[in-house]
């Protein structure tokens, strides 16, 4: 599905990501963990085209996507959420989700403005699907509320709904549980599992909350100082000496 090949990204001498290679299988729930500053979000930015790699290749469904611009990558079916929620704050929840239908709709400027029957039908469909997604993440009761008025946990779920509106095949979730209380975290775990089976998604997940990652993921990759130090099933990664050292330090 996605293969990362010797991917490297340096910012003025700092190696944010250094020769990282792994591949994600179709339908897999793949976890990405590591201490702060390990390069996890940089890796997400590379995959979604927000940053350009210094070296290495990215392949998605057999196609080289290295260096494509973000909207092209989104068009290929890769959607993401952001570590520090980036909703369209002034717009309503429904509008936020409707915007992400962009790549799955086709009406142009003129057709939309004069209201061609095809554009009107598409508009109704966009609305219907957006409402269904709000329902899925449990926000259907407040479609007209401005995004910035939602509680933090709800904003994170709204961001997931927006990403799903793209009808992605690969979904990248950047710390979806950050700032959630334990009850919210549990229901988030259920939501992620649900959308994965229901929509047949492949999911790449960055998460600090270890129980959630261990519980959800099929395989986990561990990054430390930009390098891949472990890769495997959760139980094996948990026992890996290099991982324990990275998290706890070697004096222990």
């Amino acid at each position, binding site marked *: 599905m996605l293969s990362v090949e010797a991917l490297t990204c340096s910012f003025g001498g700092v190696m944010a990501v250094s020769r990282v290679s792994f591949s994600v299988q179709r339908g897999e729930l793949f976890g990405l963990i590591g201490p702060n500053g390990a390069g996890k979000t940089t890796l997400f930015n590379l995959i*979604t085209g*927000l940053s350009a790699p210094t070296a290495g290749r990215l392949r998605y469904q057999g196609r080289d996507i290295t260096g494509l*611009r*973000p*909207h092209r990558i*989104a*068009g290929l079916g890769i*959607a*993401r959420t*952001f570590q520090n929620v*980036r*909703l*369209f*704050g*002034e*717009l*309503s*929840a*429904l*509008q936020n989700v*409707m*915007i*992400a*239908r*962009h*790549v799955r*709709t086709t*009406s*142009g*400027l003129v057709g*939309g*403005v*004069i*209201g061609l029957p095809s*554009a009107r039908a*598409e*508009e109704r469909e*966009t609305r219907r699907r957006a409402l269904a997604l709000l329902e899925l993440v449990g926000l259907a009761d407040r*479609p*007209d509320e*401005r995004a910035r008025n939602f509680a933090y946990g709800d904003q994170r779920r709204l961001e997931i709904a*927006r*990403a799903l*509106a*793209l009808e992605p095949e690969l979904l990248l979730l950047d710390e979806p549980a950050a700032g959630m209380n334990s009850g919210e975290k549990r229901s988030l775990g259920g939501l992620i599992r649900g959308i994965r089976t229901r929509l047949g998604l492949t999911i790449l997940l960055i998460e600090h909350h270890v129980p959630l990652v261990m519980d959800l993921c099929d395989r986990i990759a561990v990054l430390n100082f930009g390098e891949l130090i472990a890769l495997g099933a959760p139980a094996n990664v948990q026992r890996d000496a290099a991982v324990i050292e990275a998290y706890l330090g070697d004096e222990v």
Partner: protein
Amino acid sequence: MATFLATYDFLLVSMVLAAVLALTLYLPLMAGQLSVASPGFYALGGYVAAILSTKVFHPAPGLYPVSLVLIEMAVAAVVSGILGIAVGLPALRLRGIFLALATIAFVQILGVVALNLDVTGGAIGIFGIPQPFGSQLQYMWLAIPLLLLSMLFVARLERTRTGRALIALREDELAAAAMGVDPTYHKVLAFTASAVLAGAVGAISAHFINTWNSRQGTFDTSVNLMAFVLVGGSRTFVGPVVGGLVLTALPEALRGVADVGGLPPWFAQFLRDGRLIIFGVLIALGTVFFPHGLITPGLLGRLGLGRRTGRV
């Protein structure tokens, strides 16, 4: 009523045309781009109409056919649109204040070009542009439909896929791109739509003002348009329209106040001639106290005029 219309015919038509011009600034702003290039396209559209009507069409004596004015508007719109794409593609790589400066430079360059070409009449410009109407007030028959159509266009646009993409870019360009919105395409699209509309307004204005030269569509116009949008409101198309109408009438109103008498002479003089100073102060105060302008979607909602955001 008839005396009022007859007295203020020039002002009333100017107000309507200003409202349309204010919308040309609003269009790129929908996508978060502060461009003040539209006075340049306005000037260009005026020259297109002036040249076509005085040098190309050679109409019979008497009133100039309105149909020819409409053709000039279409030609001006197309020419402006093509220049809009050509200028927009490189210029819209710039962000924020750099884009604003580049578009100011564009307006200045067009002014200098117009001043030095033969076809534009150099410093004198083009005069004696034929009149399609017997009175100034009748220009309303062109100006009002143009304003209503452009308002309808923008109002509809905000509720379509393309409009949502523009608004997403304004809210967060990076997130919009990650959701599949092509930033360059949509910015150039908004910029070009603005150029097309400004060109059409220029074509009407050339006939309306009767003479066209390099003093039309200058940096002064850019400042006026910014005042219309920043004071009127930059988050709903109603803002620029009201801003254009009211602020165009404001100097006349101030002159009226000055003529009442009893004011110190220096203050009365300031009210008569300080238009640009007053606009400058309004822009400064407006951006500090009303960053989104006086008319906001929230205000329209409270007045029962807006639609719920979710219905967009």
